[in-house]
């Protein structure tokens, strides 16, 4: 497996050094692996801190900036950051108005953010948490750790970030973040496995003629494997899986997300099919975003996230944002 890296042990630090060089508008602490808004703490405003394993770029550091995250903590590849990083990030961005932790529902992320929240509160930082768990592929039963957090993270971070930018208090930012998560569902499909630097090759075996339906963003298998399908057929399966779980009463916001190894040519073609299915199912689409936002290293494939929209969520979605990976309106 060829990878454009030095050694596996330094991939995250190397990437952060490059990120710092490319984005002088952000403060990058390579040693502690946190990325912070240059103007933080912003007086009187609630701060948003997120983070997670590396390998999902641009999530999360790519979403740091005005209108979205105040800071992000980068863990090792597919490994959550440690509490020290989150505490440092929270302390760097807290203006006294409190901090919202945006946490994807994986055991490691939940445990480390819980520990961090306790430690930050010991230091006098008021902390609230929102758990993102939008993936319909794994059911919330007695036997699982609950749904995984995937594409909805982008909607939560953007919309809650806009609310914080408007000056909403912590309680309100938290409740909007929870509302966005509750209104969002995702489903992912893998056409190939992803390769971690530590392993030096694919982390699971997906034969060339097959695809994995309901894949997770760490390459965790999902519901089933089937012989390769067309974009049209995949769109039918993915959208129906989401709509089985989310019954939108009005327009939705749509994210057609690439897993990292699929070109935009294919993603836009797939997006066209997603629009077609949604039209056939009578679901109007208010906003569409297509691109690689919540990735899984070099995995080929895509995920579909729908978020039930309303006037307020659309207004906050449309609000100006200026981050490395998402920017509009200013």
């Amino acid at each position: 497996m060829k990878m454009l890296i030095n050694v596996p042990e330094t991939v995250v630090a190397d990437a952060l050094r490059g990120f710092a060089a490319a984005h002088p508008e952000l403060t990058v602490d390579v040693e502690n692996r946190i990325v912070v808004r240059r103007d933080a703490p912003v007086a009187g405003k609630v701060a948003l801190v997120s983070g997670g394993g590396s390998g999902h770029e641009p999530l999360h550091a790519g979403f740091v900036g005005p209108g979205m995250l105040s800071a992000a903590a980068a863990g090792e590849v597919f490994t959550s950051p440690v509490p020290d990083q989150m505490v440092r990030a929270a302390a760097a961005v807290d203006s006294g108005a409190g901090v919202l932790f945006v946490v994807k529902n994986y055991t490691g992320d939940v445990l480390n953010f819980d520990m961090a929240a306790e430690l930050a509160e010991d230091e006098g930082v008021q902390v609230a948490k929102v758990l993102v768990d939008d993936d319909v592929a794994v059911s919330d039963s007695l036997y699982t750790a609950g749904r995984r957090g995937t594409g909805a993270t982008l909607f939560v971070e953007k919309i809650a970030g806009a609310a914080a930018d408007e000056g909403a208090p912590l309680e309100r930012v938290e409740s909007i973040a929870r509302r966005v998560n509750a209104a969002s569902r995702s489903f992912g499909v893998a056409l190939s496995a992803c390769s971690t630097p530590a392993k030096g090759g694919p982390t699971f075996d997906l034969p060339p003629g097959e695809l994995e339906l309901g894949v997770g963003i760490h390459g965790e298998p999902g519901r089933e494997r089937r012989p390769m399908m067309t974009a049209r057929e995949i769109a039918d399966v993915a959208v129906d899986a989401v709509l089985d779980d989310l019954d939108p009463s009005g327009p939705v916001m749509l994210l057609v997300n690439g897993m990292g190894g699929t070109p935009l040519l294919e993603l836009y073609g797939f997006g066209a099919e997603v629009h077609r299915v949604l039209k056939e199912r009578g679901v109007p689409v208010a906003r569409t975003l297509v691109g690689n936002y919540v990735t899984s290293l070099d995995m080929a494939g895509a995920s579909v996230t729908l978020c039930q929209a309303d006037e307020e969520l659309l207004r906050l979605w449309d609000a100006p944002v200026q981050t490395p990976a998402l920017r509009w309106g200013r």
Partner: protein
Amino acid sequence: MLDAGFLQRWMAAAAAAVEREADHLTELDSAIGDADHGANMRRGFAAVAAALDAEPQTTPGAVLVLAGRQLISTVGGASGPLYGTLLRRAGKALGDAAEVTPEALAEALGTGVAAVAQLGGATAGDKTMLDALEPGVAALARDGDFAAAARAAREGAAATVPMLARKGRASYLGERSVGHQDPGATSAAVLFAALAEVAS
């Protein structure tokens, strides 16, 4: 009786054993998890060994508390807080005694295991590190025999092969987790093997 030096030797042996087993742990984790367990454990225990070298502790409890804190600060993922809690709580349970019996160590580790179960919300049989930790600690508590504890932990890890994962990343696989040994239970068995090694 076991003194601080014994516990430091355990942590050093654990670091060496985790280093030897890292690729195997990652291989197991790539079958049912996300292929990072070996690398994470290696990073954490290397930090533990370095911290104890730099700051030798004077009581068994202090050794374990420092080791646990290092794991929480360097590992990340689920294994950082879980293994960190195991050692930190065990160390706190030992208090500031200068020497402890193997049975007292077993009891303290039992306190740590209970804290791990609570933090992770798992019980034995869920295909997690608990499936090796619980039998290992139970064997040690029975007669203070480190070799027997290592054997029980190893057998506990092997017994996870046919289990259906109910917690952690592997739980997303459901039925497909069956047939693979749990990487967390395996690393727990590695820690017990290191303990038996320094005791012999």
